[in-house]
């Protein structure tokens, strides 16, 4: 990982998703992988204090550029989202684990909810030249969806909106059925309830016969998760989630985990319940 003083090249608002910052960060870009994130310092002072983690939304190694989707949440998010062309930005990254696309995958299904589009767009751009890629994208409304013209032309996309303003009315899990039989591999990123719903699909597949459509794909699914984060260096243990192997740090062992290893609790990440 690198501590890099980067420079904002351009910014653009993407509906209700947030502000996309295009950033010159050559040292980070050359190492970055889909699913990993940058920890961005919100200013030069210690108020606000904590860096904000943003998953890479685009990685251009040759140009030395990355893009981040920044929601103006809290004073730190607002500060970062209000950066303009030419502004400096203190980035720590790339951090965390990355999605692994299997060599033999022919049909790749990407599932994105809200700003969970970020790593899915990286995968779409990276994998579209090599295999069939379908992006299933969900949001509250059409304003919460990533613009299709900012996706590689060969990527097919299916959309769901909760208000029915675009595509299938409902959530991504309402539209995933027909795609499961098609896909060889599934990667997902989005809010916890969406990931938990995928987890329930996976559990159902796990209990079902081997002829269950998409069973192998569901069992093999990788997800990227979010958690309130402190240092992002693995020291503070604020960002842990419960996995089959005990607590795992989202900033180190994650944010990409096998779906089957993450423990959910009523649509939220499971949490250690004992206050001893």
């Amino acid at each position: 990982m690198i501590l890099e003083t980067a420079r904002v090249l351009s910014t653009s608002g993407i509906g209700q998703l947030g502000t996309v910052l295009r950033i010159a960060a050559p040292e980070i870009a050359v190492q970055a992988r889909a699913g990993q994130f940058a920890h961005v310092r919100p200013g030069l002072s210690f108020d606000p204090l904590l860096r904000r983690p943003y998953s890479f939304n685009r990685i251009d190694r040759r140009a030395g550029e990355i893009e981040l989707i920044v929601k103006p949440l809290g004073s730190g998010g607002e500060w970062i989202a209000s950066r303009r062309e030419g502004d400096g930005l203190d980035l720590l990254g790339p951090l965390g684990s990355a999605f692994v696309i299997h060599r033999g995958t022919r049909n790749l299904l990407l599932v994105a909810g809200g700003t969970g589009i970020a790593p899915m767009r990286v995968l779409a751009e990276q994998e579209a030249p090599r295999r069939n890629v379908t992006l299933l994208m969900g949001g509250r409304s059409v304003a919460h969806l990533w613009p299709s013209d900012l996706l590689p032309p060969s990527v097919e996309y299916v959309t769901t909106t909760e208000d029915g303003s675009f595509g299938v009315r409902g959530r991504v899990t309402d539209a995933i059925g027909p795609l499961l039989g098609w896909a060889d591999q599934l990667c997902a990123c989005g809010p916890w309830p969406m990931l938990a719903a995928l987890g329930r699909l996976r559990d159902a597949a796990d209990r079902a016969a081997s002829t269950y459509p998409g069973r192998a794909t569901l069992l093999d699914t990788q997800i990227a998760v979010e958690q309130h984060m402190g240092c992002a260096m693995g020291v503070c243990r604020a960002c842990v989630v419960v996995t089959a192997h005990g607590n795992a740090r989202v900033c180190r062992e994650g944010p990409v985990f096998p779906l089957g290893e993450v423990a959910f609790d009523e649509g939220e990440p499971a949490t250690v319940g004992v206050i001893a």
Partner: protein
Amino acid sequence: MPWRRARRKVERPVDVSRSIEESLEEAAEGEEEEDLVELAELDGATIAEAATGEPDPDREPSDLAIKLQNALDAPHREPPRRGLESEAPHRGRLPQSAASVRETTRVKAAAPSESAHAAALPETGVDLEVEAARGLRLKNPVLTASGTFGQGVEYAELIDVSRLGAIVNKGTTPAARPGNPQYRIAETPSGILNSIGLENPGATEVARKYAKAWADLGVSVIVNVAGYSVDDYVYVVHELEGTPAVVAYELNISCPNVKGGMLFGCDPGLAAEVTRAVKAETDLPVIVKLTPNAPDVVAVARACEEAGADGLTAINTVLGMRIDTKRRRPILGTGSGGLSGPAIRPIAVHITYQVAQAVAIPIIGAGGVTNTDDALEFLMAGASAVQVGTATFADPLAPIKVIEGLAAYVGGHGLASIRDVIGVALPPTPEPDD
């Protein structure tokens, strides 16, 4: 699988997007090590990474990495030899990366230029040596605070931790602890609230996993000891005794985030009891970390000194709470948590100032140190050293900047040593006759 090599060379010689993942996958599937190495060499990302530094090994799925490690450790495999003379750095990268997945042994010089040119460091030749606790001489007064620096190995990827006066490791309990429920962290004005709950692998595991890494890092380690009973503290110290890099113990008698954690720190009698018991267990200096939440922190400090403590850390976090107004409940999973960061600095400086007048043993100031001037406040208030904690989350270079800043201060003010500023802001000591 000869097809793979051919495809890579011909079809996408400069496409660099997936080398590491695919390499690991192939290792997991039992490919020959030779193939791996060759893949790495052919891959642009590898070359670029070799030039810019190591990738973070932890980002790889650990099971794959472990398989890779096993593959590479397999005794029947010899390192490949053909045509590699000019590319040795690339050849070495994958095995090294995989080996370093095991955090226990991962030690990387983050700033080789600094290590290689030690004579050129800003603090070289400046007398920053302090006695941070009785019997604990450190080359400079800048430490890292417990819970904000892990076991030292994590930030070693970014900074040269051997430049630090010492590190204080994550609070260590006799047995492993899973910690508290989410959320564990919340931002506050100029600070953070945390309620981690002393998540740690337990004393035996800490000693086993990190003894070698600490020695390799060349850093002095103060082990932060936590527990629920006197026996707990004694047990942890017993487990860590003899670990080469460990130079002292800091007794966390003041964790606000575990039930009973603050009990010892709030009661002078209990604080003295645990201090005495640990002193009997070890010959290393014993430092007691004070809590600002004690009704009479000066009384606790005096009791610890009388019980044989060699130093005091002032202060641990201040109890605090934030409410999520949308969900109408506290943000932190445990409700309350410990406030740290610049928000508590005036409290910490004040307690340092009070305690410094009450005890003769050295004090380590802690609480919101972000820069040189903050450190000087504590030193002038009577602290012999400082811990940089929460600031490191915002600026990982903060502890190093403070060392360099203090060196510049000593030079710029014509001081003989940094010790000349310790306690200069304290009121004059009364004459014995008074």
